[in-house]
């Protein structure tokens, strides 16, 4: 029993060592390491040992994204008031906290993504797992929003709301990469404004009444 838990901690540590080592390498060299062999050697680790935890550098990058996401969720959920929030506020709270977590890794993220920030419309492969997890979270919010009628159910479109929120999250990330304002105040403003817009669009609006009316006219002709 004891050995098992001891084993587990060393295992965890190895994983952490690799993640930290990777970040440090990127920070110091300004780019990703060239080969797993060299990277493992620098960490005083055998190459095959590396593969027990990660299969490639891609999977490390992916794990870093997921780690940031998990930490964000842990933090927002630890706030008591989070449960009382409306869907809109929950999503705002998520983004604000997420940006704080990103900030802790800003240099790392900048060296990997800054040069590409203009073309970031297409998602890097390593963010796919983060995206899946994010969508689960987003769907929870959307479901809740639909229950409270904060979000309108519309045929076809409303199934894509999670994509829309993802797109927005990614927009915020890009905005933040380029943000040069003190304390990233502009990112805060961008989050506030874009989330308000998104939720206003998802909410019941004049558009729904218009479509309903148009449908009625069409059908009753």
């Amino acid at each position, binding site marked *: 029993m004891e050995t098992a838990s001891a084993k587990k901690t060393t295992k965890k540590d190895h994983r952490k060592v690799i993640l930290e080592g990777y970040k440090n390498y990127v920070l110091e060299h300004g780019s990703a390491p060239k080969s797993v062999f060299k990277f493992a050697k620098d960490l005083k680790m055998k190459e095959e040992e590396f593969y027990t935890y990660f299969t490639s550098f891609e999977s490390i990058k992916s794990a870093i994204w997921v780690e940031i996401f998990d930490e964000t969720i842990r933090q927002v959920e630890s*706030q008591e008031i989070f449960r009382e*929030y409306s869907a809109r506020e929950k999503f705002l709270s998520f983004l604000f906290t997420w940006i704080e977590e990103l900030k802790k890794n800003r240099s790392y993220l900048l060296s990997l993504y800054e040069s590409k920030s203009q073309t970031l419309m297409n998602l890097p492969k390593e963010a796919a797992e983060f995206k899946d997890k994010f969508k689960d979270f987003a769907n929870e919010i959307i479901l809740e929003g639909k229950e409270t009628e904060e979000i309108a159910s519309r045929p076809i479109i409303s199934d894509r709301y999670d994509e829309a929120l993802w797109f927005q999250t990614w927009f915020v990330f890009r905005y933040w990469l380029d943000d040069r304002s003190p304390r990233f105040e502009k990112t805060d403003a961008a*989050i506030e404004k874009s989330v308000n817009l998104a939720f206003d669009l998802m909410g019941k609006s004049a558009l729904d009444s218009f479509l309903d009316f148009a449908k009625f006219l069409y059908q009753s002709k």
Partner: protein
Amino acid sequence: MPDKLKEQGAIPVTKVQRAAKFFSTGAKVGGNYMKHYAKKMVNPSMDKEELHLNNATDIYKSLSELKGSALKVAQMMSMDKNLLPRAYQDKFTMAQYSAPPLSYPLVVKTFQKYFGKTPEQMFDTFTRSAVNAASIGQVHKATKDGKELAVKIQYPGVADSVSSDLKLVRPFALRLLNMNERELDHYMAEVEEKLLEETDYILEVQRSREISEECGHIPNLKFPKYYDEFSSERIITMDWIEGKHIKEWMDTNPTQKAKNKIGQALWDFYHHQVHNLKQVHADPHPGNFIVQEGDQLGIIDFGCVKVIPEDFYQGYFALIKKELLINEDELNQIFYDLEFISDKDTDVEKAYFKGVFKEMISLLGKPFHVEKFDFADNQFFEQIFQLGDRISNDKMFRKSRQARGSRHGLYVNRTYFGIYNLLNQLEAEVDTTKPEWLK
């Protein structure tokens, strides 16, 4: 204080969108003019008030969606009533009471940024929604150890957007204020400087404390206490001042005695600042004053403080004296010093502007010329408006190639117009005290 404000829908996001917002309003204003002239052809007796009302509504709508500095400019314009036709005034006065609030998660985030704690961790209670809007922030009500507090939180990014927002407002102000470009830029530079100062909450706390200590001896005034441990660059915590805004208070039909008491407190407050401290709370808009139980005047928001330079002070008030005992040469010198006229003017212009300014100042100085002045007298205000109207429509003025009046004058004038207007609203009769040398 007003009830909960409605949370706003979409706020225009980028600069382009904000510009678009302004542009569409511009188009509407143009449209209103068209409508006006079309109607006028049919019905020549139609007066311009209706046009102004249409314009004011459209402009106000656009400004209130922008918040931040644009809102601030609206406020300033609503202050300078002498510059604005009546219909604009009422609309803009609304801007002083309502702006869309920030979401609660952003409030929490701002607290975490500056204190590392959530509002709930810092206070015993804290309202989820804003109870009131300040021009560049919003106010939440909190309690701590049985004390009621007002917590003002600044919108993020306001300091950054001051300059660009002012550029956006410029074409509007040009049209509305009927000024030429040079004059406007002159005005805008001072406004920009003051706005940037206003985003500095640390400075505001310091000044609030200074002025409230200096004015603590004046009867019937109440100042909130400020709490450093709960204040930072973007957050100010002070005592909650319970009471009514002047307009609301007037609706309760106070006695003339009560009105005079409040009016006198207001006059004394400014008298002490202008003549003794030489720095003044230069934002006398109605939202910054609260009438409390027992007819006490509460004063909040020292975001805008104007320091009055000594030489400007001497010149300005020398003109307000009842009998100008000084000779022509001295008078000319004062006009030069205050930048009312300059060497660039022709003789005709000099004579014209001197005449106008003398008339303006003697009118504004009227309350100073008597022992007691009744501000309920609307005629006095009609005269000011008429003069303002006449001047701004005068060809000489509009063609003038330069700005008139020193930039210090902008705020001092604004302050006095502001006080006069408040006193007029209060229908108060006050002892218009003045320093010895002005008597």
